[in-house]
């Protein structure tokens, strides 16, 4: 999608004939985009508020920033044959198509313009918005449309419009729209739903009816310029309605494609030429860059042109080649001057050349006595039409610029052999620096009287490269070895290291519009003096070269510098170094000291290619790269910066593309960026992209600035602030919640463990107690005594039977010993114990003790029971009841609903056997602890029943 084409910036001068060029100064067109750089023929262009250029072709829309050209997809339509482009105040780009459709592009989103009234079927030729924000669009066949209050109105021949074929629209004061048609000029307005049209045609003095283009005049809001099909151009006064024809023979019978009215010039395109005129309609030059169509000036005051070969650019009025001396003359030139009548004066060997570009007049005025060996070093023109000429070894000459008469300056003692380094002046003062001393005089029509300042100055007979009188009538001397010396009311002040001027050799001095004094020093760059201290301007401030040979001020009072690497400026207000442009074809720079001239229209300087005039046009708004963020991508997918400012924690890979648009010299642009919140150091880069992967949550501001000099103070900056949210698990509420939850859980677990431990402890205690009880019972002397008595009887009656008895007794004790440690045993095992027990007791009580066991074999293995529970109950029954033949004790056990009931008939002893009553309580506790179940004890008049909840075998 990103169709980036690196465009070779080709230096292309389109008028190749040097001989012709010598006669007619011209402008160099530089090819910025070739026709192959885009798909389809280029048809229109417009500059966006962020200084980029939109280009409409027969097959699409492109964005160009001086370096790359990017296709902008227009999804709504199949083929975009773009015939008109317009950006309104809200930065909405309006795109008019050949088929009459209109698209809107805002924030990179395109949208088909679909008013309910429909759109035209004829090609859109021009779109403009008036001061009320109403969109006007012209069609080739349906007249003019305008959108007001979301309604579309049509102004066509039915409403009085001259013709329905409209070429061009222009917004005039009072929201009047000038329209050019096949039937002349129409001035239209739409006030309170009332259309009004005024037509002007050949009947009103127009030279032709087919008006192909209209252009407003930047110097005069009451005048418009018209270009016609048959090659005429005219000025049309909106006040008097008068037509003033501009006769240009070079335009005859060539249809005018476009008109560009500048501050001092008028540029016209026809099918095979670009014609450059002065405002006074004098021809400056004509060229053929191949089918030129639309002309436009950008905010840097460059001029752009769409031609068959592609997109061309030149420096426009900023930089003009005003004279091209013969190749043989160029090395001989040491100084240049321009007088009020636009004559250009330059020095060659032994003579002065006077050249008038428009008149194509060239006069060579020899200086008597000046031969090939004595160079002419300095030219200065005073207000009385005198050109002061300084020579090496031949002194000063005076040339009358009107009469071309030359005379030697006689009033200056020793003039015949004087070597002049510099002649300068201000108002009527003339300052001469020679190897023989410093002289001052005032301009007169009479005899000249010279004041010798050499002794007064204290500088001595030394080289003084330049003498400069400032606006406060102070005179500055640039010395070779003694720094800067200032003379005020005949008092001299020396400036040096004390004031911060660390250089000794000063070449040149000037004063900017703020009143600061600037001086150029040998290998030290510049110094700026603010009446207190000197500040050095070196490479670190963006100066391209430390050796500045000439210093001057331009027409706007900014500092103009010449060095071997070219010319550059320093903005007087911001003190920023400005590189005005990549001026191909300027040729090598002359390093003669103080070889520029300040004139009313600008600064004159000469290079290996000719004499140039630099002037800052009043419409130049920009002289520094304009920074913008062109795209922000999240994981390499572009996002909308206006809509998306907040991102989830894992949306953390950001890429930024940016541009520093500087059409004058795109190759010089470099960037500095930083991501506030990530790092605080500016990173310098030539790259226009940067990626930040894995950003931590937080708020960031991406900041980028661009510069052509490497000096970034005062540079334009663009930024984008965004937030990456913390993941929810890092939010305070979540963290707090989790801490609370974990704490709660821990507290619960600890409590539970405590409970379990307590329970276990209790169980252990109970178990021990039970064991103790049981053991105690079993070793109860009563039991033993009874058992041994019974054993004795058995031995006596039948010794054979004593053996099983003892075996049972032994089994019983073994079981007790074995089982006592366990928490639970099988019901079957418990019953085995009880059987052993009953066997022993039955020997004693015989039939008086009966045991009814209705527990099935299946149930015996299905359930578990705390050990010795039944034995204890049986023992209790025997212990508390009378067991006799008359009152037999019947112990019954049965299971119902998982409850084991142990019952015995009640026949209590009157004398109760000693009992701690702890047996039953122990059973209750153990059941509670092990199974969490309750043991029920029921005592009726006849029976004692204990209900034991059974525990399923694990």
């Amino acid at each position, binding site marked *: 999608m990103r169709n980036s084409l690196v465009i070779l910036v080709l230096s292309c001068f389109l008028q190749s004939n040097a001989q012709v060029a010598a006669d007619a100064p011209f402008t160099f067109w530089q090819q910025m985009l070739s026709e192959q750089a885009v798909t389809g023929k280029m048809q229109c262009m417009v500059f966006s508020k962020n200084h980029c250029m939109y280009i409409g072709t027969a097959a699409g829309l492109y964005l160009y920033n001086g370096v790359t050209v990017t296709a902008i997809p227009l999804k709504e339509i199949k083929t975009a044959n773009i015939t008109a482009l317009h950006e309104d105040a809200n930065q909405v780009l309006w795109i008019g198509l050949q088929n009459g459709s209109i698209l809107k592009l805002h924030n990179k989103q395109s949208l088909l313009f679909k008013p309910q009234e429909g759109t035209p079927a004829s090609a859109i030729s021009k779109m403009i918005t008036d001061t009320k924000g109403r969109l006007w669009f012209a069609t080739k066949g349906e007249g003019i449309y305008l959108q007001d209050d979301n309604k579309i109105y049509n102004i066509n021949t039915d409403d009085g419009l001259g013709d329905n074929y409209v070429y061009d629209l222009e917004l005039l004061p009072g929201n009047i729209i000038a329209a050019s048609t*096949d039937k002349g000029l129409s001035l239209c307005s739409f006030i309170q739903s009332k259309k009004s049209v005024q037509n002007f045609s050949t009947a009103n003095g127009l030279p032709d*009816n*087919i008006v192909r283009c209209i252009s407003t005049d930047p110097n005069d809001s009451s005048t418009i310029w018209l270009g016609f*099909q048959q090659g005429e151009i005219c000025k049309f006064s909106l006040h008097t309605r008068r037509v003033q024809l501009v006769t240009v023979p070079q335009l005859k019978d060539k249809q005018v494609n476009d008109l560009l009215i500048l501050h001092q010039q008028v540029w016209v395109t026809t099918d095979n030429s670009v014609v450059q005129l002065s405002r006074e309609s004098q021809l400056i030059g004509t060229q053929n860059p191949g089918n030129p169509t639309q002309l436009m000036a950008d905010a840097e005051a460059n001029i752009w042109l769409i031609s068959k070969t592609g997109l061309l650019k030149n420096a426009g009025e900023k930089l003009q080649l005003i004279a091209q001396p013969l190749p043989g003359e160029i090395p001989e030139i040491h100084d240049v001057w321009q007088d009020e009548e636009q004559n250009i004066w330059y020095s060659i060997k032994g003579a002065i050349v006077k050249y008038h570009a428009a008149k194509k007049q060239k006069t060579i005025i020899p200086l008597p006595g000046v031969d090939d060996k004595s160079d002419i070093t300095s030219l200065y023109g005073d207000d009385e039409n005198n050109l002061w000429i300084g020579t090496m070894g031949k002194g000063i000459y005076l040339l009358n610029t009107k009469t071309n008469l030359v005379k030697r300056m006689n009033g200056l003692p020793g003039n015949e052999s004087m070597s002049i380094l510099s002649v300068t002046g201000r108002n009527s003062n003339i300052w001469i620096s020679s190897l023989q001393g410093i002289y001052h005089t005032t301009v007169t029509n009479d005899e000249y009287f010279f004041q010798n300042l050499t002794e007064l100055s204290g500088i001595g007979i030394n080289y003084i490269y330049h003498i400069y009188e400032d606006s406060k009538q102070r005179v500055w001397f640039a010395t070779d070895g003694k720094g800067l010396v200032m003379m005020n009311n005949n008092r001299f002040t020396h400036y040096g290291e004390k004031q911060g001027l660390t250089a000794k050799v000063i070449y040149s001095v000037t004063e900017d519009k703020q009143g600061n004094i600037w001086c150029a020093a040998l290998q030290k760059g510049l110094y700026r003096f603010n009446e207190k201290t000197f500040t050095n301007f070196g490479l670190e401030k963006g100066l391209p070269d430390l050796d500045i040979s000439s210093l001057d001020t331009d027409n706007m009072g900014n500092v103009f510098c010449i060095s071997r690497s070219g010319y550059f400026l320093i903005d007087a207000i911001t003190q920023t170094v400005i590189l005005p442009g990549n001026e191909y074809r300027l040729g090598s720079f002359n390093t003669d000291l103080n070889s520029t001239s300040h004139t009313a229209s600008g600064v004159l300087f000469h290079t290996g290619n000719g004499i140039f005039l630099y002037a800052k046009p009043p419409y130049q708004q920009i002289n520094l790269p304009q920074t913008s963020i062109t795209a922000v991508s999240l994981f390499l997918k572009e996002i909308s910066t206006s809509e998306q400012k907040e991102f989830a924690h894992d949306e953390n890979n950001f890429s930024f593309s940016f541009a520093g648009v500087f059409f004058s010299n795109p190759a010089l642009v470099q960037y500095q960026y930083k991501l506030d919140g990530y790092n605080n150091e500016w990173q310098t880069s030539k790259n226009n992209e940067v990626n930040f992967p894995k950003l931590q949550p937080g708020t960031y501001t991406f900041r980028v600035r661009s510069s052509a000099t490497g000096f970034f103070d005062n540079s334009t900056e663009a930024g984008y602030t965004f937030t990456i949210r913390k993941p929810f698990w890092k939010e305070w509420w979540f963290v707090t919640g989790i801490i609370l939850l974990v704490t709660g859980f821990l507290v619960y677990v600890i409590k539970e463990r405590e409970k379990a431990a307590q329970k276990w402890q209790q169980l252990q205690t109970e178990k021990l107690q039970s064991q103790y009880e049981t053991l105690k019972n079993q070793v109860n002397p009563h039991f033993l005594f009874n058992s041994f008595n019974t054993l004795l009887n058995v031995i006596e009656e039948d010794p054979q039977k004593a053996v099983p008895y003892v075996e049972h007794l032994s089994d019983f004790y073994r079981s007790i010993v074995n089982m006592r440690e366990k928490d639970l045993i099988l019901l079957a095992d418990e019953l085995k114990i009880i059987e052993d027990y009953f066997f022993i007791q039955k020997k004693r009580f015989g039939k008086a003790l009966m045991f009814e066991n209705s527990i099935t074999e299946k149930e015996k293995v299905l359930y578990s029971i705390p050990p010795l529970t039944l034995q204890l109950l049986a023992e209790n029954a025997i212990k508390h009841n009378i067991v006799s033949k008359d009152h037999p004790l019947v112990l019954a056990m049965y299971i119902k609903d998982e409850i084991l009931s142990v019952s015995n008939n009640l026949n209590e002893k009157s004398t109760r056997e000693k009992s701690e009553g702890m047996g039953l309580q122990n059973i209750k506790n153990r059941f509670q602890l092990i199974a969490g179940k309750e043991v029920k004890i029921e005592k009726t008049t006849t029976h004692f029943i204990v209900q034991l909840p059974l525990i399923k075998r694990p």
Partner: protein
Amino acid sequence: MYYVRWLMILWIVCSAFVQPLIYSSNNGLVIFRSEAPFELINASSKELKGALDLSKNNFAFRIRIRSFEGFNSPLQKEHFNENYMESEKFPEAVFNGKIIETIDYSKKGKYSIRAKGKLIIHGVEQERIIKSDLEVTEKGIRIISQFSVLLSDHAIPIPRVVKEKLANEINVSINAELYAK
């Protein structure tokens, strides 16, 4: 349908009294000429049909491509119709539009005019402004014009083999006399 018939009758009756406003021709002359380095090709047709509406200053002309005669050989004519002009697919060339200049047709004399309109040749439309001479005579209106047509403008391909024999720029001249209906 009844009132339509009445309207037509009314229109016929009215037009009988009003000065004629529509001038037309059926046999205008069209000549074209290709001046290539190695060959000169000439062809012409006398079947130019055209109409001029004086009230609106509008015009329409058309010519059947197959009606061109001349050429240097019958084979050349065949190539012209089949390979270049594709006369089956695009049987006619059309030019219609308006006259820029305002002319007083009641005054006899020669006027230099510009005819602006859509020129359709080989199915490709080009907007053209064509300079012509218009002469108001006793009998009617004569139109004489000379202009050029670029084959490349109308997507008519020139094979490389005949590049030296066929010019891209074809000179066309028109001479038509239009009479009142």
